[in-house]
């Protein structure tokens, strides 16, 4: 089956552009940069189309390359996420249909203050709904590291949310299930 798969580039872009763009945006916090990363990721996909064995492989490949390019972009720019979010608010305002709820926006903002490895696993966990094993495969990282980053990232985010999001969440809800 895998070898009979005929990839349709245009269809792949249509199906996965939202996923790639969202990953890049949440990793970098910069809408413009996320668009560039999404474009680069799909152009790289075009070069590697013949190596892909099926739709699942294409999805896995896109996630892996989008995450890796976002990490590269962050390293290149050497800008802290929180600064980037000032940029996003000022220069790269989202279209009305792209705006998330106030709580969602605040959570995303808090997410950008996390260290990059923790942010990466949390984005893959909660945006893409991946298991730690799948995250480890996507990031090419040891499973133990992924689990540790998930726990630490979640703990840190929970603590930040407890301090910053009191207006949005009922008491006890933020810490619920800790």
């Amino acid at each position: 089956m895998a070898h009979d798969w005929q990839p349709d580039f245009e269809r792949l872009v249509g199906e996965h552009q939202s996923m790639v763009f969202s990953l890049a945006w949440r990793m970098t916090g910069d809408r413009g940069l996320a668009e560039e990363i999404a474009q680069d990721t799909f152009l790289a996909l075009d070069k590697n189309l013949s190596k892909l064995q099926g739709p699942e492989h294409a999805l896995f490949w896109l996630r892996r390359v989008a995450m890796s390019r976002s990490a590269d972009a962050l390293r290149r720019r050497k800008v802290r996420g929180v600064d980037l979010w000032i940029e996003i608010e000022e220069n790269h305002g989202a279209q009305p249909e792209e705006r998330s709820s106030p709580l969602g926006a605040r959570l995303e903002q808090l997410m950008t203050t996390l260290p990059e490895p923790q942010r990466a696993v949390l984005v893959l966990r909660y945006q893409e709904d991946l298991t730690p094993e799948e995250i480890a495969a996507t990031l090419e990282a040891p499973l133990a590291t992924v689990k540790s980053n998930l726990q630490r990232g979640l703990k840190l985010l929970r603590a930040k949310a407890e301090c910053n999001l009191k207006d949005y969440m009922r008491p006890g809800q933020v810490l619920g299930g800790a």
Partner: protein
Amino acid sequence: MDEMDPFESKLREAFVRRPAPPGLKRRILDERARLKKERRRRTIMVWQRLAAGFAIAAVLGGGLTWRHVEEERRGKAARQEVLTALRITNQALDRIQARLAASDRDDHATGERQ
């Protein structure tokens, strides 16, 4: 890991995929077409340079071969001329030698008679 607490559920709600910006797909497809065109142009340019290189090499090779053949032809002609000259000289010397021999014989006969 599979059971989510309320905070994780909030995270999941907050982290739904965002819609891609309008026109992103168009831009990707346009850039892809541009890169393909650029690659094709570069490939053509490489082949053109290769063809030009081959043509120059062929002209130079032809010129060198022609020069070699021409030099060989001139060498052969010069050798032929030298051989002809030697043959003529040889014939002239033979004639002179024959005359001298005839002259010696005449002198010898005259001496004996006296």
